[in-house]
């Protein structure tokens, strides 16, 4: 049986997110799935830097045993902020699309934009 550690969970989350991106037609659900995919990558990065019984990487704590690697924890902050920006901006664009087409269905929006393009020519 697979050990239930951070890395396996992150791969599972990644898979669920991918399924959401592929199978669900609703754009908002798609974006939630994308958020899951991005969080999975972050979880993977943090758990690979972890170690069992490691102390938190703070200078204040007395050095009792080995510390957890602080670098992954520092850099995932940037990744979290970036993912927040991506989701926020994407939702604004979904809002603009909903105002125009009154739907969040990706396939219907695809058809409507394609039809508009044909009528242009």
């Amino acid at each position: 049986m697979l050990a239930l550690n951070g890395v396996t969970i992150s791969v599972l989350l990644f898979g669920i997110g991918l399924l959401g991106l592929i199978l669900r037609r609703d754009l908002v659900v798609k974006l939630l799935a994308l958020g899951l995919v991005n969080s999975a990558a972050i979880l993977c990065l943090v758990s690979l830097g972890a170690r069992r019984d490691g102390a938190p990487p703070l200078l204040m704590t007395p050095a009792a045993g080995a510390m957890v690697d602080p670098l992954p924890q520092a850099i995932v902050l940037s990744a979290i902020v970036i993912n927040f920006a991506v989701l926020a901006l994407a939702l604004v664009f979904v809002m603009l699309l909903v105002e125009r087409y009154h739907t969040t269905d990706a396939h219907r929006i695809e058809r409507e934009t394609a039809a508009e393009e044909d009528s242009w020519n």
Partner: protein
Amino acid sequence: MELILLPLIRFLFGGLSMASGRASRIFAILALVADAALLGKLAVSLSTGISPAIILGGWDRGLGIAFVGDQMGLTFAALTWGLGVAVVLYTWRDALRPYFFMLLHLLIGASYALVLTKDLFNTYVILELLTLASFLLVGYGRRPRQIWASLRYLILCSLGMSLFLFGIAIVYYHTRSLDLTEIAVRIATDPGAPWVRLAAALLVGGVAVKAGVFLFSLWLPAAHARAIPAVSALLSGVVIKMGVVVLFRLSGVFPLGLTFTVLGFATGLLGILYAVQTYDVKRLLAFSTLSQIGYLLIGFGVGSEAARLGAIDYAVAHGLFKGLLFLAVGEAARIVGTSDLRALVLNRNAIPGATRAALIVGVLGIIGMPPFAGFAAKAVLESALHPTIFHAAVGLLSVGTAVSFAKLAPLLFARSSGRTDRTRAASYGWLGGTVVLFLPLSATIVPRSLLTATLVWPAFLEAIAAILLGLGLYRLVRNRPFRLPQGVFRIEEGTLVILAGFFLIYVLLLNG
């Protein structure tokens, strides 16, 4: 010092443009002047043999973020600058919001940072910054179809960047470093380890989404074709090249020879097939971008120094003539009211003379007519391709490029009327001049000895033969329209294809 100032000045001007919208054009010019001075300083120190390097925050190498100014970085930064000049000139009289200039500064600054950084995680952050800036620029016109194209772009690129982040996690776990030079040293001790393959497949698969490699970049045709012309030129000329720069840097760390040649040939061929069957000129240009990435990947896959330089040279040449083509086609499409080729041909006399001249120079550049830009770079690249099968593959792609651009021929012969705006004409002149005079320019990228050794009669004859063969083939296929699947450009298929592409790279790495 210039390494840090290059990106930071752009971010400063980006903020200033938002704060004082009226002066945004003046800020754009000031930024270009400042960049020119900094790039000149970098070029001077490189010509004396010193490549400046700095590690941010005073950390040791491996912990801090390393910025290194090398020849490749300078070349691509100069390309970015050149296209920046063209875009500022082209949009001089357009009514654009300060927001556009803010994004322009952000995009150019991020590009400078990307070509200079040697840090894997910093690369990730800058790629995401580039994604966000270009996402907003594609949607700038606020037309629903632009919004939809840019949303698809964002979703697929963000997925690709997640793969990249997984790759970073694996690399960091095994090497305890994010510095590309150090990672290369650690991997060289055990290049066959399973984790190296997995990490390479994740990193390359993730960046390929941004770099315009066909199987991965299914968002590209819509985004490049629907954006406003100035943005399309930047996307094709600069943003795609930034993905390519990262791929080039990764090829110095991981054993990617076979992967790059296979991906290069696939993207070249598929790009051409789609380009031949489309009648929308902007989509044609976008598909041709996908096919041109093929040359670059094959050049880097072969791995010799001459092929590497040839690929960099070609990347610059492509940025110049594709930028020119997007600007000129964009104006023609605006005048006629559509980018459909049949309508453009019917109304071809309405296209002003300067625009048509720009179109002619761009097309001659892309099909590799001597002595224009495409020819010089392709000659260096082809001469370095051994064994001959690679040479034949690139020759085939050249013929295909000629086939796909042959249908623009009627646009080139017309009586033009109307005048082009002066600043627009200046923008065409700037880019067109570099396309015409690319041979002397490329002497700064490729050593002169290599250049003179490759520019011999057989190379001229080969280039002309490829063009003539392409024109002949076009006459054959012209009356046989064929349809390729268009459904692959949706988000669902795009996601599946990115996943399949990742497995493909993994398998290729097993054999490489």
